[in-house]
C-alpha cells in the first residue's frame, strides 16, 4: 500500500518534472525541474531496494553535476528568440532521436518479458550476495570481477580531467601569486625596523 502510493508519487512527479524540463521557457527553471526529476528517480531506486544507487544519484547528479549546470546556465546571457528560431529546422533530427529512444525502450521491455536478460555472473544467476547489504554487494563485485573495468573508467576520467585543464589553462604573466608559507613564516623582526632619524633627514628603506 505504502509502496504503491510512494511509487505513483515518485513516478508521477518524475514525469511532470521531465516534461517541465523541456517545456520551461527559462533555462534556470529547466535545470531546477531536471533536479526534481533526478530526485524522484532516486526515490524510485529506493523503492527498488537499490539504496546505494539512489544515494549516489543524489550525491553525484543532484549534488555536483546539476550545481555546475545551474552555475553555467545562470551565467549565460541567453536570447530566447534566437534559441527558439531553429525549432522547425531541428524538428526532424529530434524526432529521429525520439524514435531511436522509443525503439530501445520497446526492445528493453520486450527482452525483459521474454526472460532473455543475462545479468550478473556468467551462468545467468543474479549477482546478489546473500546476507550482504546493497553497498557491500556492489563493492564486492566492483573490486573483484569488474576491477579492471572500474580502474580503466577511473583512468579515462583522470585523462579527461587533465585534458580539460590543459586545454583551458593559459599562462598569465601579470599575476602576483602568494607564497602562503612565506607569509606565515614572516616574523615581526623581518618586517619592522626601528629607526630614530635626525630632524630633517629621511629614512632609508
Amino acid at each position, binding site marked *: *500500500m*505504502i509502496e504503491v502510493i510512494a511509487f505513483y508519487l515518485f513516478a508521477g512527479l518524475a514525469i511532470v518534472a521531465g516534461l517541465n524540463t523541456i517545456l520551461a521557457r*527559462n533555462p*534556470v*527553471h529547466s535545470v*531546477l525541474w531536471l*533536479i526534481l526529476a533526478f530526485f524522484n528517480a*532516486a526515490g524510485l531506486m529506493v523503492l527498488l531496494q537499490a*539504496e*546505494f544507487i539512489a*544515494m*549516489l544519484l*543524489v*550525491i553525484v547528479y*543532484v*549534488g*555536483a553535476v546539476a*550545481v*555546475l549546470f*545551474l*552555475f553555467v546556465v*545562470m551565467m549565460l546571457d541567453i536570447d530566447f528568440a534566437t534559441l527558439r528560431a531553429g525549432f522547425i529546422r531541428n524538428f526532424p533530427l529530434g524526432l529521429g532521436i525520439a524514435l531511436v529512444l522509443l525503439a530501445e525502450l520497446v526492445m528493453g521491455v520486450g527482452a525483459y518479458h521474454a526472460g532473455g536478460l543475462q545479468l550478473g555472473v556468467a551462468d545467468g544467476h543474479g549477482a546478489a550476495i546473500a546476507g550482504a*547489504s*546493497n*553497498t557491500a554487494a556492489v563493492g564486492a563485485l566492483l573490486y573483484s570481477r569488474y576491477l579492471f573495468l572500474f580502474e580503466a573508467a577511473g583512468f579515462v576520467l583522470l585523462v579527461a580531467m587533465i585534458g580539460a585543464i590543459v586545454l583551458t589553462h593559459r599562462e598569465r604573466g601579470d599575476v602576483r601569486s*602568494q607564497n*602562503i608559507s612565506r607569509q606565515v613564516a614572516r616574523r615581526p623582526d623581518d618586517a619592522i625596523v626601528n629607526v630614530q632619524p635626525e630632524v630633517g633627514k629621511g629614512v632609508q628603506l
Partner: protein
Amino acid sequence: MTAFFQSVFGWSYELAWFLSTIAGILLIALPLMLGVAMIIYVDRKIWAAMALRRGPNVVGPLGILQSFADGLKVFLQETIVPTAANKSIFVIGPIVTFTVTLLAWAVIPFNSGAILADINVGLLYVLAISSLGVYGTIMAGWASNSKYPFFSAMRASAQMISYEVSIGFILICVVLWAGSFNLGTIVEAQRGHVFGIINGFVANPLLFPMWVMFLISGMAETQRAPFDLTEAESELVAGYQTEYSSMAFALFWLGEYGNVLLMCALNATLFWGGYLPPLDIPVLYLVPGVVWLLLKIFFFFFIFSWVKATVPRYRYDQLMRLGWKVFLPVSLLFVVLVSGYLMYTGHFA
C-alpha cells in the same frame, strides 16, 4: 514504535507505521526548532562574553526569551517580494534551505536503536542531503535578481562543492574503520575503540587529524565564520538574504543554525562516540545516551561560537586554497594510510 502501536491499539501495520513515523518526525523536529531558538541565544551570549559585552539581557530572565521575541517580531513583519524577483523561486529558496536542514536529522542516532530511519546508507544519506543545502542559497541568490545576492550564490556554490570533496574522503576513513555506512553501527564501532576504554575515533592517532579537518570543513560547509563569505557584510550587504524579509528571512536563519547543530551532531556521532559516554566505564552508562549526545553537540557548538568570536574572516582565495590544496591532498593521503593500516593489521579478514 510501530510494533508498540500495533500491540497496544491493535492497528494495521500501515496505519501504525504511518503514525509512528509522523510521531518520530515531530519528536525530532519540534525539539530541534526549540533548540535552534535557544542556541541562537547561546551563540549571542558567548559572542558577547568574548567581546566583553552583556549580550541579550532584556527579554525574560537573563534575556533567555530573546529569540522568541525576535521570532514574533519577524512573524509580524510584512513579507516583501521585489518586483524584479523571480517570484516562485524566490519563495521556494528559503523553504528548500529549511527543509533540507530538517531532513538530515532522520538518520542521527539519539540513543541505542533510537533512530527515525535506521537505513544501511545513513552516512551517504547525510552527504546527499547536505549537498542539497546549496540549492536554497543558489535559488535565493538568483531569484532575487540583484547583484549582491547573485555574487553570494556564486560564492556559496563554489565553496560548498570544494569542501564536500574533502568531507567525502574524511568520511571514507571513518567508514573504513567502522565497516558500515549505518550511523548506529559507526557509533557502536567506537565503543572502547582506544585501549578498550575510550569511546570515540577521535583518540585514534590516524583519525584525530581527520576530525580536525572535519571540524574546519564543517565550518566552511555551514558557512560559519571564519568562512562566512556568502554573507560577508562588508562586501555583500547580507549576501543571498539581502532581499528577504519577514518569515522567509527567518527560515534562512533557522536553517543556518539547524545546519550548524547538524554539523555538531555529526562531529559527535562520527568521531566522539555519539550517544556513548566518553569512557567505557559502567557507571557512566547510568546517564542516558541522549544526554551525552546533547552535551557533545553543545560542546561543539561552543567551539563554533568561539571560532566565530575570535577568528577573522578568510579571504576568498585563501578559502579555495585551503579546500583544494591542503584538505583534499591530506585527506586523500589519510584514506591511503588508514586503508593500508587496516589491510596490514587484517581488519577486514
